């Protein structure tokens, strides 16, 4: 008897929970910023990582900010197309040609993937519609607290003394940190090794346990460990200094004349998006990046806001395409 009663209570609770969840998630149709154009249905926000991945978290944060600041009137659903480092997401967008209710967050990975992943086929970023560039995530170089290196020059000088011995840790051998490592090796005429880990946490752990000598990563990857005195930031691997570590000298400051690959995040749409749709989304993102919530978010996470709209964003991506291609050649990938 008690069992039945409990079971009934449970189902009631489940029902209530679902209603509560529904209230939290539901809303009106996707709204805009007063523009005339409206997409035919609620905008689907595509990302190329799984739930919990970098792009996924960024987009969910972005949507929360847009919702908090009433830039949009309901939450846009996120769609994860994880296959092939962006290749799957690109192909998904290709299938939405001419439509206006799907957009995607991109990172520098989208520039690299068509050059490295065969399965991507013939798709390139140029086929897609450039909507807006949002941020650059300045990469910094971290070493363990008791590391002998005080600057990137120290590290490179040591690498020259023992070529092929020192270890940089990071993700895949085609990600931004690895490419910049390859460019710096070519520039300085020395060599070091690259240790790949899937997760950022594993890379930081490798740095903390001294398996790796250094790592290029975002301010967010290191900030808490720097504050705790476990890691030090010795260089900025980006022309834009990190707002979190403004004192870290850039690679150029240290006298290396090399154009590095930036970690960027921005928005693209499917091919042949209408001008009204492009304008509609440009307005939304321009408005979002001007809100106090965004500024606070960017500052806390060490992001540099660099709004680039339409053609400017397209030109920027084309330029980065060349840099990445060159880096891949240098790294012989």
């Amino acid at each position, binding site marked *: 008897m*008690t*069992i039945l009663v409990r*079971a009934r209570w*449970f189902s009631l609770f*489940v029902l209530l*929970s679902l209603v*509560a*969840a529904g209230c*939290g*998630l539901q809303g009106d149709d996707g709204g805009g910023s007063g523009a005339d154009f409206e997409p035919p249905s609620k905008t689907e926000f595509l990302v190329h990582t*799984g*739930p*919990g*991945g970098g792009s*996924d*978290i960024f987009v*969910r*944060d972005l*949507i*929360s900010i847009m*919702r908090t600041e009433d830039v949009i009137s309901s939450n846009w659903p996120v*769609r*994860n197309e*994880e*296959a*092939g*480092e962006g*290749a*799957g997401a690109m192909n998904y967008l290709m299938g939405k040609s001419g439509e206006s209710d799907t957009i995607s967050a991109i990172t520098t990975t989208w520039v690299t993937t068509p050059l*490295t*992943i*065969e*399965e*991507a*086929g013939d798709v390139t970023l140029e086929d897609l519609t450039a909507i807006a560039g949002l941020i650059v995530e300045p990469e910094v170089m971290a070493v363990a607290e008791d590391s002998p290196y005080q600057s990137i020059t120290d590290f490179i000088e040591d690498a020259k003394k023992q070529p*092929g011995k020192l*270890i940089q840790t990071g*993700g895949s*051998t*085609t990600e931004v940190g690895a490419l910049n490592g390859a460019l710096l090796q070519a520039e300085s005429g020395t060599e070091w090794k*690259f*240790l*790949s*880990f899937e*997760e950022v*946490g*594993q890379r*930081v*752990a490798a740095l*903390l*346990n001294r*398996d790796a000598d250094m790592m290029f990563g975002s301010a967010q990857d290191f900030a*808490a*460990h720097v*504050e*705790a005195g*476990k890691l030090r930031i010795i260089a900025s691997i980006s022309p834009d200094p990190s707002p979190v570590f403004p004192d870290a000298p850039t690679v150029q400051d240290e006298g290396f004349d090399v154009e590095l690959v930036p970690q960027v995040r921005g928005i693209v749409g499917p091919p042949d998006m209408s001008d009204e749709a492009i304008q509609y989304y440009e307005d939304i993102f321009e408005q979002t990046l001007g809100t106090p919530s965004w500024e*606070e978010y960017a500052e*806390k996470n060490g992001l540099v806001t660099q709004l680039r709209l339409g053609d400017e964003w397209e030109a920027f991506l084309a330029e980065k395409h060349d840099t990445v291609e060159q880096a891949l050649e240098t790294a012989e*990938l």
Partner: protein
Amino acid sequence: MVDALQGLTDGFAAALTPTNLFWALFGVTAGTMVGVLPGLGPPATIAILLPLSINLEPATGLIMMAGIYYGAKYGGSTTSILLNIPGEDASVVTAFDGYQMARQGRAGPALGIAAIGSFVAGTVGLVGLTFLAPAVAALAIIFGPPEYAGLMVLGLSLVLMLAGSSLLKAMMSAAFGFLLSTIGLDLFSGTTRFTMGQIELTNGIEFVALSIGLFAIGEVMMNVEEETGRQLFKVPKRLKELFPSRKDVKDSAAAIGQGSVLGFFVGALPGAGSTVASFISYTVAKRFAKHPEEFGKGAIQGVAAPESANNSATAGAMVPLLTLGIPGSASTAMMLGALFLYGLQPGPLFFRDNPDVVWPIIASMYIGNVILVLLNLPLVPLFASVLRIPYHILYPGIVVISVVGVYSIRNSMFDVWMLVVFGLLGYLMRKTDFPTAPLVLAFVLGPLFERAVRRSLILSAGSPTIFLTRPWSLAFLTITVVLLVSPLVLRNKIPTDVIEVEA
């Protein structure tokens, strides 16, 4: 110690407010449902609920997210046991013996011991999280590539113990699982392997499609082929049979104990996680069982050990997240993302700087565990009665749940086709008496092993001595050798029938 007690007391005060209690209840209930149904996993659920949670206080939001995470491990065992459908990655091992128990009319005791084991282990894990967090965090850092390689050698050697009647067939099954696991993008070269140009294969074979295909679909095909109308499941008649007996609990005590401890430590290692914990705990239980020959045929320890380990692992996984800001799984990565969104900076100083966030989360997990066992135990008879459903409804039902579940993971028809392929494979393996467990074990541990070895060799510039010079690695290799050799040495002291099964 005193600090931890003080923190925990304050945490309980905060966690017991009506708001926090409600969201803990909400989280664990949602988690249970997510765990019961295959497909949508905890990370995706946490992601979907992120917009809801950021309107809550940081501690409250995290209480809910953590609830989903460990709640799912409770629910995951249900469909594994009843229908041979692993509802969640970490419950794959539970199906080995749980489903056999269900067939023998012991679904109730299996579900019951899963709930009890989860509760005990979850609580043991939390005690570890409360008092040992800093020490265990240090361990997580020490654990580099050679240490993982050693641990994986230990794990893979356990294939021999999952062998069943033919060692050769077990090895072939494991080798095939290993090969399947190499499909997809290779981190070290940035290129793909064995994808046959299929974009869907660039991220490898979806584990859920593989495990549900091999187990659930293969089993259904096997059963429909046999004469229909035969009583496949013994249906328990008396209420007493619906719960674990005193003997069941006594038999499972050791398995729950080791699962609690192993699960906590393995869970704390970034990159290992609850699935690996469940495998290791299962095989340890088998290795030290009085009747290892019963494993795979409905041994209650075979349910108790992995279910304990996967729950304790969730508390373990909170250690690197809260003490280092290092997430070890997709679920904890989502929680880290949420913490960043709240403007918090989890890292080595998180406990010191944000006790008002950390301790309520930990305290709520104790409470959540109690809620879960109170929710789940009364549901046992309800769930067990699923097996009364006539087969002409149950089997199509299993197929539908499997297809929908697999499709929903990444909205992919390709994965559904993979489910069909692995269903056929599971059927053929049953027909030809190949064990499926070694395939799944190798598929899970293989990539971890391969990457750990490759990383180690990068560190040592190609010298394999690194596996012997790092103490933890050496320790795991030594344990492996001892485990493998001891049955041979002790041959005279153990009844021969045990040896034959193990060989």
